């Protein structure tokens, strides 16, 4: 399972590096979304607002949806799906590999968006740095849940509108935990309970994905 996971993750990341969708499409989109959030708050409020963590996760949620679609589209061509199906890859390994590649892409984007939040929304630099570990855990959980829901919504062949509808209820607890932990990091609150919630969510989504990904692929 681990061998297949590393193989699939390596393949997805190589395709991403080659196609540069993350660099030229997703990152500019994330920065533009942050700018719009700053404009929505207004120049006088952006620096004083406590909305920074929530807006950071809102932008990351939109980025996650784009990246899930992208991750599924890689496998979406009918001929590719068929050929890869005949390789008989362990579905648990495929799930872990796709989730790992998506997590790496979200981590890269998350670091850029976090820096953007400091610059554009004036969130505190030290607090944002303290929030970084919890951000990475939440993004990994979003990647695991997103890979699962990407397969559930048709694996790149279903309607694009189905993914947000299906996945938002699953993402909501992660976003709440993420927003709370980032806010606590900014304002000196206790972080550990949000860490526990984030880690439990990550483990749960990985376990569910390992168990169900094969069934979703078959269906």
């Amino acid at each position, binding site marked *: 399972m681990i061998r297949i996971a590393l*193989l699939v993750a390596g393949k997805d990341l190589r*395709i991403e590096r080659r*196609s540069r969708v993350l660099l030229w499409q997703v990152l500019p989109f994330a920065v533009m979304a942050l700018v719009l959030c700053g404009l929505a708050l207004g120049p006088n409020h952006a620096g004083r607002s406590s909305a920074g963590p929530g807006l950071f996760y809102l932008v990351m949620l939109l980025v996650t949806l784009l990246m899930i679609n992208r991750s599924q589209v890689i496998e979406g061509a009918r001929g590719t799906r068929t*050929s890869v*199906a*005949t390789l008989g890859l362990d579905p648990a390994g495929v799930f872990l590999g796709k989730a790992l590649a998506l997590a790496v892409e979200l981590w890269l984007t998350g670091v850029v968006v976090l820096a953007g939040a400091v610059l554009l929304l004036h969130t505190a630099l030290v607090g944002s740095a303290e929030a970084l570990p919890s951000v990475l855990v939440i993004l990994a959980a979003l990647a695991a849940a997103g890979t699962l829901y990407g397969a559930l919504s048709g694996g790149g062949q279903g309607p694009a509108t189905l993914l947000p509808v299906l996945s938002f209820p699953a993402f909501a607890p992660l976003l709440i935990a993420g927003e709370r932990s980032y806010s606590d990091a900014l304002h000196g609150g206790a972080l550990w309970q949000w860490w526990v919630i984030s880690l439990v969510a990550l483990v749960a989504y990985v376990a569910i994905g390992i168990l169900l990904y094969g069934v979703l692929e078959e269906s």
Partner: protein
Amino acid sequence: MSSPTPVVALRDAVVLEDGYPLLSGVTLDLDAGTLSVVTGANGAGKTSLLRLLGGLTTLSSGSGVVSGVDLRTGDLRQLRRRVGWLGHEGSFYDDLTVRENLTFAAKALGRPVEEIARVLDRVGLANRVNIQAKRLSAGQRRRLGLAWLLLRRPEVWLLDEPYASLDDEGRTFFDGLIGDVVASGASVVVSAHDPLRSRALSPRTIIMAGGRIAGDLS
């Protein structure tokens, strides 16, 4: 004298998609180590038949056994590992190079990556190893698909319209390679649109129309 072992045995096979019959009551036996051609007009059910044989779609009613796997009760994943599929739409990752695609397949199958050079030589793509798949011509893409299959060495080769948009040289190359595969003991099922080519290619031609077998010329 013992009769040849059937690699495919379908009995009244029906495949429905959203209630619409893609295959209706197909009964078919194909012997192991032979080449069979499935022909018919667009929408006749050629691709649906090949997908059923590959365990890529499920049987709605009837029964069938392919390469020893029961299509109703058997493990379709196991069947898929025994078949190789080549479609006309491309069968790999477009953003990866020829070598990267084959390395992925070799590692997934646990095959030594040294075999890649051998299969690339065989299909005539040895000078295209670092080209992205999306930059290959239609004929070269088809050869890459063949290289993927040669690396896999499946028991049953399912080739869906492999001659589409190939020039004469490409078709001749395909004919030679298919002949070698059959000579090595594998079973090959080719769907082809052109009845004349079908007759030239194989002594066994199955004619499909409306999801049914309309003729079987042996």
